[in-house]
Protein backbone atom coordinates (compact mmCIF):
# COMPACT_ATOMS: atom_id res chain seq x y z
CA UNK A 1 0.00 0.00 0.00
CA UNK A 2 2.90 2.35 0.83
CA UNK A 3 6.45 1.81 -0.29
CA UNK A 4 9.45 4.07 0.28
CA UNK A 5 12.29 3.32 -2.10
CA UNK A 6 15.78 4.62 -1.33
CA UNK A 7 14.32 7.97 -0.27
CA UNK A 8 16.97 10.66 0.27
CA UNK A 9 16.95 14.36 1.04
CA UNK A 10 19.67 16.87 1.93
CA UNK A 11 19.39 20.49 2.98
CA UNK A 12 22.39 22.67 2.27
CA UNK A 13 24.83 19.77 2.31
CA UNK A 14 23.36 18.25 5.51
CA UNK A 15 21.78 14.85 4.95
CA UNK A 16 18.31 14.77 6.48
CA UNK A 17 17.19 11.41 5.11
CA UNK A 18 19.59 8.85 3.65
CA UNK A 19 18.34 6.08 1.41
CA UNK A 20 15.26 5.27 3.48
CA UNK A 21 13.36 2.18 2.33
CA UNK A 22 10.44 0.29 3.83
CA UNK A 23 7.00 -0.82 2.82
CA UNK A 24 3.72 -0.94 4.62
CA UNK A 25 0.72 -3.18 3.95
CA UNK A 26 -2.96 -2.69 4.53
CA UNK A 27 -3.73 -3.27 8.20
CA UNK A 28 -0.33 -2.14 9.40
CA UNK A 29 -0.04 0.82 11.78
CA UNK A 30 3.54 1.97 11.89
CA UNK A 31 4.97 3.92 14.81
CA UNK A 32 7.66 6.07 13.21
CA UNK A 33 10.08 6.95 15.99
CA UNK A 34 13.24 8.98 16.31
CA UNK A 35 14.77 11.86 18.21
CA UNK A 36 14.10 15.47 17.22
CA UNK A 37 15.95 16.13 13.98
CA UNK A 38 16.25 12.42 13.14
CA UNK A 39 14.46 12.97 9.84
CA UNK A 40 10.94 11.77 10.71
CA UNK A 41 9.06 14.83 9.53
CA UNK A 42 11.20 15.16 6.39
CA UNK A 43 10.49 11.51 5.51
CA UNK A 44 6.78 11.97 6.14
CA UNK A 45 6.67 15.19 4.12
CA UNK A 46 8.37 13.47 1.20
CA UNK A 47 6.02 10.50 1.49
CA UNK A 48 3.04 12.90 1.37
CA UNK A 49 4.41 14.78 -1.64
CA UNK A 50 4.85 18.02 0.33
CA UNK A 51 8.52 18.20 -0.59
CA UNK A 52 10.34 16.45 -3.39
CA UNK A 53 13.02 13.86 -2.62
CA UNK A 54 16.52 14.36 -4.02
CA UNK A 55 16.57 10.67 -4.87
CA UNK A 56 14.24 7.72 -4.52
CA UNK A 57 10.50 7.37 -4.80
CA UNK A 58 7.35 6.75 -2.80
CA UNK A 59 4.66 4.44 -4.13
CA UNK A 60 1.16 5.03 -2.77
CA UNK A 61 -1.35 2.34 -3.72
CA UNK A 62 0.59 1.68 -6.92
CA UNK A 63 1.16 5.32 -7.88
CA UNK A 64 4.55 7.04 -7.79
CA UNK A 65 4.70 10.32 -5.87
CA UNK A 66 7.54 11.45 -8.16
CA UNK A 67 6.05 10.70 -11.59
CA UNK A 68 2.31 10.70 -10.79
CA UNK A 69 2.05 12.89 -7.71
CA UNK A 70 -1.62 13.82 -7.88
CA UNK A 71 -2.85 10.24 -8.34
CA UNK A 72 -0.69 9.19 -5.38
CA UNK A 73 -1.98 12.09 -3.26
CA UNK A 74 -5.61 11.23 -4.02
CA UNK A 75 -5.00 7.99 -2.10
CA UNK A 76 -3.17 9.59 0.79
CA UNK A 77 -4.21 11.60 3.83
CA UNK A 78 -1.65 13.73 5.62
CA UNK A 79 -1.75 15.48 8.98
CA UNK A 80 1.30 17.77 9.07
CA UNK A 81 3.21 18.55 12.25
CA UNK A 82 1.28 21.12 14.29
CA UNK A 83 -1.86 20.51 12.18
CA UNK A 84 -1.73 23.83 10.28
CA UNK A 85 -5.18 25.13 9.35
CA UNK A 86 -6.68 28.31 7.90
CA UNK A 87 -7.61 30.41 10.97
CA UNK A 88 -10.25 32.46 9.14
CA UNK A 89 -12.28 29.39 8.15
CA UNK A 90 -14.79 27.31 10.08
CA UNK A 91 -14.19 23.54 10.21
CA UNK A 92 -17.16 23.12 7.85
CA UNK A 93 -15.66 25.55 5.31
CA UNK A 94 -12.30 23.85 5.68
CA UNK A 95 -13.70 20.38 5.03
CA UNK A 96 -15.71 21.67 2.05
CA UNK A 97 -12.51 23.23 0.68
CA UNK A 98 -10.75 19.87 0.99
CA UNK A 99 -13.68 18.17 -0.76
CA UNK A 100 -13.21 20.57 -3.69
CA UNK A 101 -9.47 19.94 -3.79
CA UNK A 102 -10.09 16.16 -3.80
CA UNK A 103 -12.80 16.49 -6.47
CA UNK A 104 -15.48 15.05 -4.22
CA UNK A 105 -18.96 15.84 -5.54
CA UNK A 106 -21.25 18.02 -3.44
CA UNK A 107 -23.54 15.17 -2.36
CA UNK A 108 -20.63 12.85 -1.54
CA UNK A 109 -18.97 15.72 0.31
CA UNK A 110 -21.97 16.12 2.57
CA UNK A 111 -21.82 12.48 3.66
CA UNK A 112 -18.00 12.59 3.92
CA UNK A 113 -18.22 15.65 6.18
CA UNK A 114 -20.82 13.88 8.35
CA UNK A 115 -18.58 10.81 8.60
CA UNK A 116 -15.38 12.61 9.58
CA UNK A 117 -17.23 15.01 11.88
CA UNK A 118 -18.49 12.03 13.83
CA UNK A 119 -15.13 10.21 13.69
CA UNK A 120 -13.13 13.21 14.90
CA UNK A 121 -15.88 14.37 17.29
CA UNK A 122 -15.96 17.94 16.10
CA UNK A 123 -19.71 18.37 15.57
CA UNK A 124 -19.95 21.02 18.31
CA UNK A 125 -17.42 23.34 16.68
CA UNK A 126 -18.31 23.01 13.00
CA UNK A 127 -19.52 26.59 12.64
CA UNK A 128 -16.93 28.23 14.88
CA UNK A 129 -13.94 30.01 13.41
CA UNK A 130 -10.81 27.82 13.57
CA UNK A 131 -8.82 30.68 15.15
CA UNK A 132 -11.08 30.43 18.22
CA UNK A 133 -10.67 26.66 18.69
CA UNK A 134 -8.45 24.98 21.30
CA UNK A 135 -5.30 23.18 20.18
CA UNK A 136 -7.01 19.84 20.72
CA UNK A 137 -9.97 20.73 18.52
CA UNK A 138 -7.68 22.13 15.82
CA UNK A 139 -5.79 18.87 15.71
CA UNK A 140 -9.03 16.93 15.42
CA UNK A 141 -10.17 19.21 12.59
CA UNK A 142 -6.82 18.50 10.89
CA UNK A 143 -7.37 14.80 11.40
CA UNK A 144 -10.88 15.06 9.96
CA UNK A 145 -9.34 16.80 6.94
CA UNK A 146 -6.85 13.99 6.43
CA UNK A 147 -9.74 11.50 6.43
CA UNK A 148 -12.22 13.38 4.25
CA UNK A 149 -11.46 11.42 1.07
CA UNK A 150 -11.19 8.08 2.88
CA UNK A 151 -7.58 7.51 1.79
CA UNK A 152 -5.82 4.14 1.56
CA UNK A 153 -2.74 5.52 3.29
CA UNK A 154 -2.65 7.88 6.29
CA UNK A 155 0.45 9.76 7.38
CA UNK A 156 0.00 11.45 10.74
CA UNK A 157 2.74 13.60 12.21
CA UNK A 158 2.18 13.78 16.00
CA UNK A 159 -1.60 13.22 15.82
CA UNK A 160 -2.13 13.21 19.59
CA UNK A 161 0.12 16.17 20.43
CA UNK A 162 -1.85 18.76 22.40
CA UNK A 163 -4.79 16.48 23.15
CA UNK A 164 -6.02 15.78 26.67
CA UNK A 165 -6.05 12.14 27.87
CA UNK A 166 -9.69 11.60 26.87
CA UNK A 167 -9.13 13.06 23.41
CA UNK A 168 -5.97 10.97 23.04
CA UNK A 169 -7.91 7.86 23.82
CA UNK A 170 -10.57 8.82 21.27
CA UNK A 171 -7.93 9.37 18.56
CA UNK A 172 -6.25 6.07 19.39
CA UNK A 173 -9.61 4.32 19.17
CA UNK A 174 -10.29 5.99 15.82
CA UNK A 175 -6.91 4.89 14.46
CA UNK A 176 -7.53 1.33 15.67
CA UNK A 177 -10.93 1.32 13.95
CA UNK A 178 -9.45 2.49 10.66
CA UNK A 179 -6.40 0.25 10.83
CA UNK A 180 -7.82 -2.82 9.13
CA UNK A 181 -8.59 -0.98 5.87
CA UNK A 182 -5.57 1.32 5.64
CA UNK A 183 -1.83 1.58 5.96
CA UNK A 184 -1.06 4.16 8.65
CA UNK A 185 2.19 5.87 9.60
CA UNK A 186 2.24 7.72 12.92
CA UNK A 187 5.06 9.77 14.30
CA UNK A 188 4.97 10.36 18.04
CA UNK A 189 7.19 11.29 20.94
CA UNK A 190 4.84 9.61 23.42
CA UNK A 191 6.27 6.12 23.42
CA UNK A 192 3.71 4.67 25.81
CA UNK A 193 0.96 5.14 23.26
CA UNK A 194 2.84 3.18 20.58
CA UNK A 195 1.78 -0.31 21.73
CA UNK A 196 -1.82 0.91 21.99
CA UNK A 197 -1.91 2.17 18.41
CA UNK A 198 0.80 0.45 16.40
CA UNK A 199 1.55 -3.09 15.32
CA UNK A 200 4.94 -2.17 13.88
CA UNK A 201 7.74 0.20 14.90
CA UNK A 202 10.53 1.79 12.89
CA UNK A 203 13.25 3.80 14.61
CA UNK A 204 15.33 6.22 12.60
CA UNK A 205 18.41 8.17 13.55
CA UNK A 206 20.34 10.75 11.50
CA UNK A 207 18.07 10.00 8.55
CA UNK A 208 18.74 6.26 8.58
CA UNK A 209 16.53 3.36 9.52
CA UNK A 210 18.09 1.62 12.55
CA UNK A 211 15.34 -0.72 13.73
CA UNK A 212 12.18 -2.28 12.32
CA UNK A 213 10.10 -4.68 14.40
CA UNK A 214 6.86 -5.07 16.33
CA UNK A 215 6.42 -2.96 19.50
CA UNK A 216 6.44 -6.16 21.57
CA UNK A 217 9.72 -7.39 20.08
CA UNK A 218 11.33 -4.02 20.54
CA UNK A 219 10.15 -3.76 24.13
CA UNK A 220 11.76 -7.15 24.85
CA UNK A 221 15.21 -5.80 23.96
CA UNK A 222 15.57 -4.03 27.32
CA UNK A 223 14.12 -4.47 30.75
CA UNK A 224 12.49 -1.07 30.89
CA UNK A 225 10.29 -1.77 27.88
CA UNK A 226 9.88 0.25 24.70
CA UNK A 227 11.20 3.53 26.09
CA UNK A 228 14.44 1.98 27.37
CA UNK A 229 14.85 0.03 24.15
CA UNK A 230 14.42 3.21 22.11
CA UNK A 231 16.96 5.15 24.22
CA UNK A 232 19.35 2.20 24.03
CA UNK A 233 19.07 2.01 20.24
CA UNK A 234 19.54 5.72 19.66
CA UNK A 235 22.41 6.16 22.15
CA UNK A 236 24.27 3.12 20.75
CA UNK A 237 23.97 4.59 17.30
CA UNK A 238 25.17 7.98 18.55
CA UNK A 239 28.17 6.42 20.30
CA UNK A 240 29.03 4.47 17.15
CA UNK A 241 28.85 7.56 14.96
CA UNK A 242 30.95 9.58 17.47
CA UNK A 243 33.62 6.87 17.45
CA UNK A 244 33.49 6.71 13.66
Amino acid at each position, binding site marked *: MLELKQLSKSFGGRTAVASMSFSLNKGEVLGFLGQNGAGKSTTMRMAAGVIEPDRGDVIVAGHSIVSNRREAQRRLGFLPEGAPLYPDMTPLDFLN*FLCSAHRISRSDCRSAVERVTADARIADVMSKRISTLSKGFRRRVGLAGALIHDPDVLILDEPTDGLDPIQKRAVRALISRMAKDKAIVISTHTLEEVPAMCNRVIVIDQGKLIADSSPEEMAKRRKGGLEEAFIDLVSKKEAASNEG
Partner: protein
Amino acid sequence: MKAELRDILTSFRASYLRELRAYFATPLAYVFVAIFLMLVGVFTWEASRFFDTGLADLQPFFYWHPWLYMIFLPALSMRLWADEIAYSTSELLFSLPVSLFGLATGKLLAAWSVAALSLVLTFPMWITVNYLGAPDNGAIAITYLTSLLMAGAYLSIGAAMSSLFSSQVLAYIAGILVAFVFTAAGWPMLVGAISGLLGAAAGDLVAQFSFLTYFETAQRGVLELRALLYFVGVILAWLSLNTIWVANKRAFAG
Protein backbone atom coordinates in the same frame (compact mmCIF):
# COMPACT_ATOMS: atom_id res chain seq x y z
CA MET B 1 -4.16 16.78 -21.27
CA LYS B 2 -7.84 16.54 -20.37
CA ALA B 3 -6.98 15.30 -16.87
CA GLU B 4 -4.45 18.14 -16.43
CA LEU B 5 -7.06 20.71 -17.46
CA ARG B 6 -9.56 19.18 -15.06
CA ASP B 7 -6.99 19.36 -12.25
CA ILE B 8 -6.26 23.01 -13.06
CA LEU B 9 -9.96 23.90 -13.02
CA THR B 10 -10.60 21.96 -9.80
CA SER B 11 -7.64 23.62 -8.09
CA PHE B 12 -8.64 27.02 -9.44
CA ARG B 13 -12.19 26.70 -8.11
CA ALA B 14 -11.12 25.47 -4.67
CA SER B 15 -8.47 28.15 -4.33
CA TYR B 16 -10.63 30.99 -5.71
CA LEU B 17 -13.54 30.29 -3.35
CA ARG B 18 -11.22 29.89 -0.34
CA GLU B 19 -9.34 33.11 -0.99
CA LEU B 20 -12.45 35.13 -1.75
CA ARG B 21 -14.01 33.91 1.49
CA ALA B 22 -10.78 34.77 3.33
CA TYR B 23 -10.86 38.36 2.02
CA PHE B 24 -14.39 38.90 3.29
CA ALA B 25 -14.04 36.85 6.49
CA THR B 26 -11.62 39.48 7.78
CA PRO B 27 -11.87 43.29 7.52
CA LEU B 28 -9.19 43.28 4.79
CA ALA B 29 -11.44 43.54 1.72
CA TYR B 30 -13.79 46.07 3.34
CA VAL B 31 -10.91 48.26 4.54
CA PHE B 32 -9.21 48.02 1.16
CA VAL B 33 -12.34 48.99 -0.77
CA ALA B 34 -13.14 51.84 1.63
CA ILE B 35 -9.64 53.35 1.56
CA PHE B 36 -9.34 52.93 -2.19
CA LEU B 37 -12.66 54.69 -2.83
CA MET B 38 -11.81 57.46 -0.41
CA LEU B 39 -8.41 58.13 -1.99
CA VAL B 40 -9.72 57.89 -5.54
CA GLY B 41 -12.25 60.55 -4.53
CA VAL B 42 -9.65 62.77 -2.88
CA PHE B 43 -7.24 62.57 -5.83
CA THR B 44 -9.96 63.08 -8.42
CA TRP B 45 -11.83 65.93 -6.79
CA GLU B 46 -8.98 67.66 -4.96
CA ALA B 47 -5.57 66.84 -6.47
CA SER B 48 -6.81 66.86 -10.08
CA ARG B 49 -9.23 69.74 -9.42
CA PHE B 50 -12.00 67.95 -11.29
CA PHE B 51 -14.45 70.85 -11.24
CA ASP B 52 -11.83 73.36 -12.43
CA THR B 53 -11.22 71.41 -15.67
CA GLY B 54 -14.69 72.29 -16.91
CA LEU B 55 -14.80 69.00 -18.80
CA ALA B 56 -17.32 66.20 -18.32
CA ASP B 57 -14.93 63.29 -18.59
CA LEU B 58 -13.14 60.95 -16.24
CA GLN B 59 -9.54 61.79 -17.18
CA PRO B 60 -8.78 63.27 -13.73
CA PHE B 61 -10.16 60.06 -12.18
CA PHE B 62 -8.28 57.56 -14.36
CA TYR B 63 -5.03 59.53 -14.27
CA TRP B 64 -4.28 58.29 -10.72
CA HIS B 65 -5.12 54.64 -11.23
CA PRO B 66 -1.60 53.32 -11.98
CA TRP B 67 -0.14 55.13 -8.97
CA LEU B 68 -2.91 54.08 -6.62
CA TYR B 69 -2.71 50.50 -7.86
CA MET B 70 1.05 50.54 -7.39
CA ILE B 71 0.61 51.42 -3.70
CA PHE B 72 -2.59 49.58 -2.86
CA LEU B 73 -2.76 46.38 -4.86
CA PRO B 74 0.38 44.84 -3.31
CA ALA B 75 -1.48 45.23 0.02
CA LEU B 76 -4.24 43.06 -1.39
CA SER B 77 -1.92 40.40 -2.77
CA MET B 78 0.75 40.33 -0.04
CA ARG B 79 -1.03 37.68 2.03
CA LEU B 80 -1.81 35.27 -0.82
CA TRP B 81 1.27 33.05 -0.41
CA ALA B 82 3.13 34.72 2.48
CA ASP B 83 0.38 33.61 4.88
CA GLU B 84 0.49 30.06 3.56
CA ILE B 85 4.21 29.95 4.31
CA ALA B 86 3.94 31.77 7.67
CA TYR B 87 1.11 29.54 8.99
CA SER B 88 2.59 26.39 7.38
CA THR B 89 -0.71 25.78 5.57
CA SER B 90 1.49 25.38 2.49
CA GLU B 91 2.31 21.94 3.98
CA LEU B 92 -1.35 21.07 3.84
CA LEU B 93 -1.81 22.58 0.39
CA PHE B 94 1.17 20.72 -1.08
CA SER B 95 -0.18 17.42 0.24
CA LEU B 96 -3.37 17.85 -1.80
CA PRO B 97 -3.76 16.52 -5.36
CA VAL B 98 -3.91 20.02 -6.81
CA SER B 99 -2.33 21.89 -9.71
CA LEU B 100 -0.06 24.70 -8.55
CA PHE B 101 -0.94 26.76 -11.63
CA GLY B 102 -4.63 26.30 -10.79
CA LEU B 103 -4.01 27.36 -7.19
CA ALA B 104 -2.00 30.42 -8.24
CA THR B 105 -4.68 31.42 -10.76
CA GLY B 106 -7.42 31.02 -8.16
CA LYS B 107 -5.57 33.20 -5.67
CA LEU B 108 -4.89 35.88 -8.28
CA LEU B 109 -8.47 35.88 -9.51
CA ALA B 110 -9.79 36.24 -5.94
CA ALA B 111 -7.63 39.32 -5.34
CA TRP B 112 -8.61 40.61 -8.78
CA SER B 113 -12.30 40.20 -7.91
CA VAL B 114 -11.84 42.45 -4.86
CA ALA B 115 -10.05 45.00 -7.05
CA ALA B 116 -12.87 44.73 -9.62
CA LEU B 117 -15.44 45.33 -6.90
CA SER B 118 -13.55 48.48 -5.86
CA LEU B 119 -13.56 49.65 -9.45
CA VAL B 120 -17.28 48.93 -9.87
CA LEU B 121 -18.00 50.94 -6.72
CA THR B 122 -16.54 54.04 -8.36
CA PHE B 123 -19.72 54.21 -10.49
CA PRO B 124 -20.85 57.45 -8.78
CA MET B 125 -17.98 59.15 -10.66
CA TRP B 126 -19.46 57.97 -13.95
CA ILE B 127 -22.95 59.05 -12.89
CA THR B 128 -21.55 62.45 -11.90
CA VAL B 129 -19.91 63.17 -15.28
CA ASN B 130 -23.04 61.99 -17.10
CA TYR B 131 -25.11 64.30 -14.93
CA LEU B 132 -22.78 67.23 -15.61
CA GLY B 133 -22.42 66.76 -19.35
CA ALA B 134 -22.32 64.27 -22.22
CA PRO B 135 -19.08 62.30 -21.90
CA ASP B 136 -17.89 59.67 -24.38
CA ASN B 137 -19.18 56.61 -22.52
CA GLY B 138 -17.49 54.28 -25.01
CA ALA B 139 -14.12 55.80 -24.15
CA ILE B 140 -14.94 55.56 -20.44
CA ALA B 141 -15.84 51.86 -20.82
CA ILE B 142 -12.56 51.21 -22.67
CA THR B 143 -10.57 52.93 -19.93
CA TYR B 144 -12.40 51.03 -17.20
CA LEU B 145 -11.66 47.74 -18.99
CA THR B 146 -7.98 48.61 -19.43
CA SER B 147 -7.79 49.76 -15.82
CA LEU B 148 -9.16 46.41 -14.71
CA LEU B 149 -6.57 44.59 -16.84
CA MET B 150 -3.84 46.82 -15.42
CA ALA B 151 -5.05 45.98 -11.89
CA GLY B 152 -4.63 42.30 -12.78
CA ALA B 153 -1.07 42.98 -13.92
CA TYR B 154 -0.21 44.77 -10.65
CA LEU B 155 -1.81 41.95 -8.65
CA SER B 156 0.07 39.27 -10.60
CA ILE B 157 3.34 40.99 -9.61
CA GLY B 158 2.23 41.24 -5.97
CA ALA B 159 1.09 37.60 -5.87
CA ALA B 160 4.40 36.40 -7.31
CA MET B 161 6.35 38.49 -4.79
CA SER B 162 4.17 37.07 -2.01
CA SER B 163 5.38 33.56 -2.87
CA LEU B 164 8.97 34.57 -2.11
CA PHE B 165 8.42 35.66 1.50
CA SER B 166 6.86 34.40 4.69
CA SER B 167 6.39 37.99 5.85
CA GLN B 168 3.49 40.02 4.47
CA VAL B 169 5.44 43.23 5.04
CA LEU B 170 8.39 42.06 2.95
CA ALA B 171 6.02 40.77 0.27
CA TYR B 172 4.32 44.18 0.22
CA ILE B 173 7.59 46.10 -0.07
CA ALA B 174 8.91 43.80 -2.81
CA GLY B 175 5.56 44.09 -4.62
CA ILE B 176 5.69 47.89 -4.54
CA LEU B 177 9.31 47.97 -5.73
CA VAL B 178 8.68 45.77 -8.77
CA ALA B 179 5.40 47.56 -9.50
CA PHE B 180 7.25 50.89 -9.29
CA VAL B 181 9.69 49.75 -11.99
CA PHE B 182 6.80 48.78 -14.29
CA THR B 183 5.07 52.11 -13.61
CA ALA B 184 7.94 54.59 -13.55
CA ALA B 185 9.44 53.20 -16.77
CA GLY B 186 6.80 55.20 -18.63
CA TRP B 187 6.99 58.31 -16.49
CA PRO B 188 7.73 61.24 -18.88
CA MET B 189 10.49 62.61 -16.60
CA LEU B 190 12.31 59.28 -16.51
CA VAL B 191 11.79 58.57 -20.21
CA GLY B 192 13.12 62.07 -20.96
CA ALA B 193 16.20 61.49 -18.79
CA ILE B 194 16.94 58.12 -20.44
CA SER B 195 16.40 59.63 -23.90
CA GLY B 196 18.81 62.46 -23.02
CA LEU B 197 21.45 60.04 -21.78
CA LEU B 198 21.14 57.11 -24.18
CA GLY B 199 19.13 58.46 -27.09
CA ALA B 200 15.42 58.59 -27.98
CA ALA B 201 15.34 54.93 -29.02
CA ALA B 202 16.45 53.81 -25.54
CA GLY B 203 13.84 56.03 -23.90
CA ASP B 204 11.12 54.60 -26.15
CA LEU B 205 12.27 51.06 -25.48
CA VAL B 206 12.11 51.51 -21.71
CA ALA B 207 8.68 53.15 -22.00
CA GLN B 208 7.39 50.09 -23.89
CA PHE B 209 7.67 48.10 -20.65
CA SER B 210 5.58 50.50 -18.63
CA PHE B 211 1.93 50.15 -17.66
CA LEU B 212 1.63 53.92 -18.00
CA THR B 213 2.37 53.83 -21.74
CA TYR B 214 -0.48 51.43 -22.50
CA PHE B 215 -2.90 52.94 -20.04
CA GLU B 216 -2.42 56.44 -21.46
CA THR B 217 -3.56 55.20 -24.87
CA ALA B 218 -6.68 53.74 -23.28
CA GLN B 219 -7.34 57.05 -21.50
CA ARG B 220 -7.66 58.66 -24.91
CA GLY B 221 -10.48 56.23 -25.61
CA VAL B 222 -8.46 53.99 -27.92
CA LEU B 223 -8.74 50.25 -27.45
CA GLU B 224 -5.45 48.90 -28.73
CA LEU B 225 -4.91 45.21 -29.29
CA ARG B 226 -1.26 45.59 -28.31
CA ALA B 227 -2.31 47.09 -24.96
CA LEU B 228 -4.64 44.15 -24.29
CA LEU B 229 -1.94 41.68 -25.33
CA TYR B 230 0.63 43.50 -23.21
CA PHE B 231 -1.43 43.36 -20.01
CA VAL B 232 -2.53 39.75 -20.61
CA GLY B 233 1.10 38.86 -21.36
CA VAL B 234 2.34 40.52 -18.17
CA ILE B 235 -0.31 38.69 -16.11
CA LEU B 236 0.55 35.31 -17.64
CA ALA B 237 4.29 35.89 -17.26
CA TRP B 238 4.04 36.76 -13.55
CA LEU B 239 1.52 33.98 -12.97
CA SER B 240 3.99 31.53 -14.50
CA LEU B 241 6.82 32.91 -12.36
CA ASN B 242 4.56 32.60 -9.33
CA THR B 243 3.86 28.94 -10.14
CA ILE B 244 7.56 28.20 -10.72
CA TRP B 245 8.57 29.87 -7.44
CA VAL B 246 5.94 27.93 -5.50
CA ALA B 247 7.02 24.69 -7.21
CA ASN B 248 10.61 25.47 -6.20
CA LYS B 249 9.47 25.73 -2.58
CA ARG B 250 8.21 22.16 -2.84
CA ALA B 251 11.45 21.01 -4.47
CA PHE B 252 13.88 22.75 -2.15
CA ALA B 253 11.89 23.46 1.05
CA GLY B 254 13.57 22.73 4.35
